[in-house]
Structures are given as structure tokens and as C-alpha cells.
């Protein structure tokens, strides 16, 4: 199982740049890049901050998916 996210889609919907979102959740832009690529799984704190920014519950942004073969 892997953790996937909808950060890229939600960011576009909220008209936020990677830099803008990074500033709001207090991380570097590179972390947002890695998050969107799926190469980084955020901490619960960062996930909650992102959920707060998009005003959505965490499970609507981050979800489990079976690993592709």
C-alpha cells in the first residue's frame, strides 16, 4: 500500500502556486514538489496543515492505494 494525495489538483483549484502553498504550511517549495510527485509522505502535522489550508478532511486529500506492479 502507498499513500497518494490530491495536493496538485487542490492547489490548482485554489489558485495556489507551489511556493504559495509551501509558505502557508511552512515548508520549502521542494517539499511540495516531492509531495505532489508522491516521493515524500508528509508527517501528520504537515498533512493537517495542508488539510486546513484546503478546508478539507485529511482523508479527502491523502488516501491509501495498492502499489502498482
Amino acid at each position, binding site marked *: 500500500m502507498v499513500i497518494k494525495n490530491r495536493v496538485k489538483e487542490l492547489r490548482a483549484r485554489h489558485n495556489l502556486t507551489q511556493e504559495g502553498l509551501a509558505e502557508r504550511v511552512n515548508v*520549502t517549495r521542494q517539499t511540495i514538489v*516531492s509531495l505532489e510527485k508522491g*516521493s*515524500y509522505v508528509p508527517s501528520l502535522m504537515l498533512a493537517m496543515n495542508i488539510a486546513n489550508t484546503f478546508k478539507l478532511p485529511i482523508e479527502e486529500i491523502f488516501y491509501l492505494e495498492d502499489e502498482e506492479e
Partner: protein
Amino acid sequence: MKIVRNGSIIIVSLILFGWMMSGFYQASLDIVEFSKDTSRGFLFEINIVPFLLLIILSGMFTLFTKRIKKKKILWLPEEFEESDEREQQITARACRAAYISMIYAFPIITVLLLFYPFISKAIPYYPIIVFILLPLTQIMTYMISWQKNYK
């Protein structure tokens, strides 16, 4: 990339430090000779080129990093990039890798010291060179791990 720049500066500084210490070692050999036989003149030579280069390099590096990173804690190495949780994780992994490299490098370096009696005449400062291999291995491992995990 900052980590490559900072790491390279540390590696060059270490090499210069080793070079400087080798010079000092030669000088201390001369001083020991004098203490054994005080009838001869108190004369020794020191190569100050690496010392001067090291001072210039460290000065420039300190000024440069102070200018761009004012909020950074002074006593932490410059290679530590920990501005957010992901960078902290990458740094933690790199430190782990550096520790593992120490475990493997240490016995090899100790074995290398066994060759000292064979070459002590030709390279009297051989232990200094060998000893500097340990931090060099660790710093290079740290940099490689950081680079690998940052992508």
C-alpha cells in the same frame, strides 16, 4: 546545490588541514632532533602555504555563509539543511549513512596504519593522511546520501 558546495569546501579544508599538519609533523621531527642533541642549532622548517590557504578559505566561507544564512545556528555544520521536516528526514538518513560508513572505514583505516613501519622513512606523516581518510569518507557518504534522497 548548497550541499555540494558546502561539502566540497569542507573536503578541500580537510585536505588543506592534512597538508598543514604534515608540515607541522616535519617541523616537530626537527624539534625532537634538537631536544636530543642541543649542540646543534635550533632550526626547523614549516610550510605555511596550506595554513594560509586554509585561513583564506575558512574566512571566505564564514563570511559568505554568515551573509546568506543569518538565522542559522553557528555551531552546526553548514551541510546540515534542516529548514523543514523533509530536509530534517534527509539529513537524518545522511547521518545514518555516514555512521555506517564509519563502521566500515574504521577497520580499513586501522589496517592501513599497519603499513606505517614500512614507509615511515619515505612518508613520516603517513598516519595523518590515513587518519584524515575517516572524516573524508564520512563527509562524502553524507553528501552522496543527501543528494540521492533529495531528488
